[in-house]
């Protein structure tokens, strides 16, 4: 039954990035099945994210399609905190397909990070705005192919 629920969660996409599922984003922390009830514990990427309510509804709908659960509960938990290294390898590829650079590794010594352009792969990029259209993204510019693009912010407990 857990497998069924997990498969359903693969169909729940980020409301704004429809190529990537919440599983590949690393938001799914636990799935708990007891009898015909299922409890899904999710980690919010950023706390003020307005997509959380939509994600919750979509989780209930997708798991509900399986038709084997009488009670579906979604809970957002803070611990452990979501960090950008939870995005899976598949997730990183899917983000790139969407035109968003996957979260770079955070260099704790300097606080700097290096992002490659998701379109042409060039490392010759500049930061336009640390803050982007959503809490989890930044805006960058590629000086090689001259495209603006977005990158997922690196988030680590080392900060």
């Amino acid at each position, binding site marked *: 039954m857990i497998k069924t629920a997990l498969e359903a969660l693969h169909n729940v996409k980020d409301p704004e990035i429809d190529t990537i599922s919440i599983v590949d984003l690393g938001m799914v922390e636990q*799935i708990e099945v007891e009898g015909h009830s299922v409890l899904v514990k999710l980690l919010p990427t950023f706390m*003020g994210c307005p997509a959380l309510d939509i994600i919750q509804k979509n989780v209930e709908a997708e798991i509900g399609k399986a038709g084997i659960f009488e009670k579906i509960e979604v809970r957002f938990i803070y611990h452990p905190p979501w960090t950008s290294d939870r995005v899976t390898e598949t997730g990183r590829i899917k983000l790139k397909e969407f035109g968003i650079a996957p979260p770079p590794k955070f260099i704790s010594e300097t606080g700097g990070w290096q992002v490659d352009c998701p379109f042409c792969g060039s490392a010759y990029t500049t930061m336009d705005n*640390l803050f982007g259209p959503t809490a989890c993204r930044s805006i960058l510019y590629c000086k090689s192919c001259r495209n603006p693009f977005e990158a997922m912010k690196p988030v680590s407990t080392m900060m």
Partner: protein
Amino acid sequence: MKRRFFHGEGWRKVTEPAGNMPIEAKIKPALTSLLYQLADDDFILAYRGAEWLGLAPHIEEDVAFSSISQDTMGHAAMFYQLLADLGEGNVDSLAHARKTSERRNAVLLELVNGPGHYLSSAQYDWAFAVVRNYFYTQAKKIRLDSLKNSSYRPLAEVALKVNMELYYHLLHWKTWFIQLMQAGGEARTRMEAAIGKVLADFEGVLILGPLAKEMAEYGLIEKEEVSKQRWLHTMKPVFESVNLAVSEANLAMKTGNGRIGEHTVDLDDALSTLSEVYNINPAASW
């Protein structure tokens, strides 16, 4: 039998889910007092930040500042949730339905952004926004570093999460502060005026109210005096780098002590605006 799937792990049997942490009755007043301050501080400053939407100096700043305000409102929601878990009421009513005299935010954080109204003729002061946000964010960072080791585990967990987002806020405001301070001319003059205004009430941000001693005693957060010294110590090299002399003697609480419910008409106005929709029907589900 219960089975759980953990991120990055296989199948595993578990014993008992972690519930709310039980606390001793004697600790509760200090704990809730601390949480009200943390929640109310973030809540009102996020509101003041939201009023800047569309009015920031340039479009990239509009994106950044609104993102920061959204994060900050998210932090307030987490602290209100911790209060809700302790039986203080639900999150929406904690945020919207409490009177001015019940609020525990520092007075500095409630002051208007400047003359005028955001819908018309706003003459907001960007220097004040930069200084207030930078000084506050640094104080919040110091507070969170201590809260990460709080004896109340749910608070320690929230602190870890908030701290990660705060990293970017601090970087943002510090950059603005240094650049405007080094710009000279009108920028420098206005920044210095804003610094005077912020410091005149910054003591009110650094204190933790009448139960501060108990908070430290129960290991909820470090002593307010220690945090204050940390703030001065952290800011010193930044002030020196922009040729600014600030000492402990500059810190004051001119306009009132928000930690004991003293507030200004600015907060009255803000609360009546932000809770206007909520008050149409407090029982409505959003």
